[in-house]
């Protein structure tokens, strides 16, 4: 085995990249999830609705557009698993977590924007997503998620 590795230095590089991708990617992902859950609790007070119009309210409110966007890159390990997955089909689990993180982070940034403007709810929330792939073949797969909606702001008394 060691003789084989000595004869194929490019394979060693590949294994190192894979290991770095796996450990660094997992560490980054679990740290991000911890941060996401903490901030979701903090911003739980800002409500989010998919409906186009808020329910009839007594007080006249102002509205404004708020948005939050994030770009998250996959790692070498995810890329490798995904390239194998393409042959067989099935759940792209490594990308599911990637997109889940991106959506939730985008929502958090949108809510933070709403909070900064004095809003207490966001209506008509929508998502846009864009595949940021650098270079065609073998490029790094990164994804952008944009969340936007109409923030409801109660006038100051």
């Amino acid at each position, binding site marked *: 085995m060691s*003789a084989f590795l000595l004869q194929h230095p490019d*394979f060693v590089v590949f294994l190192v990249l894979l290991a770095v991708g796996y450990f660094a990617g997992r560490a980054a992902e679990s740290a991000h999830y911890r941060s996401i859950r903490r901030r979701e609790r903090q911003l739980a007070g800002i*409500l*989010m609705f998919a409906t186009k119009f808020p329910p009839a309210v007594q007080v006249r409110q102002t509205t404004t557009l708020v948005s939050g966007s994030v770009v998250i890159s996959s790692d070498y*390990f995810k890329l490798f698993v995904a390239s*194998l997955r393409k042959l067989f089909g099935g759940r792209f689990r490594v990308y599911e977590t990637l997109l889940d993180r991106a959506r939730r982070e985008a929502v958090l940034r949108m809510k933070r924007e709403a909070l900064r403007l004095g809003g207490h709810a966001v209506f008509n929330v929508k998502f846009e997503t864009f595949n940021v792939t650098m270079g065609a073949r073998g490029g790094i797969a990164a994804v952008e998620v944009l969340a936007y909606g109409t923030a409801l702001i109660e006038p100051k008394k």
Partner: protein
Amino acid sequence: MSRSYENPPQPEQVETGDGHPLLEVAILLSGVVAIGAVFVAVIAFSVTWVAPKVPFRFERQLADPFFEERKPPSDKDAFARERELRAIADRLVAAMDLPRDMSVTVHYDQGPVLNAFASLGGHIVIYRGLIERMPNEDALAAVIAHEIAHVQHRHPAASLGRGVAMALVLSVIGMSTGSGIADRVVGAAPNRALLKFSRDQEEEADAGAMRAIARVYGHVGGMQDLFRVFQDARPDAPRGAQFLLTHPVTAERLQAVASSAAREGWATDGERRPLEGPLKKMNHTREPTC
């Protein structure tokens, strides 16, 4: 706004998916390796079957232009050496029952490497570095006979066919995965399988060479002398790593000579013919420096 609205926390379905990612990789990889192995087995089998059925003149049409471009030996000595090598080859060919339409052309190369190879169209190249290390004509004839046996069994054509087919399969897999990463791993599996086929070819060529040497020289001592030269030149040859080598391990080849000789009733020892004429002049046996 009424207080009755709330956003309940979303259930965490995505992150806590079942199965460890490394387990997923292991399952996917073994599937890919299995598919690669099946591909290679099918291709190698069909190419090995087809190659000997392609008329030899197609091979010559393909290869002759390349060898015509080679500069003929410039100095007189090299020219004489090539002529001498061809004389040895002619004696061997006469003893090897080659098909009628098959021809063998030996070329002499000034390169210092301890090597020789057979190519398409019956072209065989013998390097100066190899001749210099040969203790006698029997050993040199063993090399030439080994290469002629490759030609006889159409191994260069089979190897070319496999190479082209493999490149095709890898590019298809590469296209379907769309990344350079997976085909590296997928590529490693077929390469290992091909090494096995390549070793089978070497064993076949050894067997053919032994038969020819026994007929022309009366014994197979030349084969043993040849493998001992290889053993001395590569004392650090990995043991137990045979799966990764193109040629069988030298000690095993020596053993194969002994067992074949016992089976066929060939003498394993006998009088050796010294290298003569233009081949002798250059054959200053020296200590291997590597």
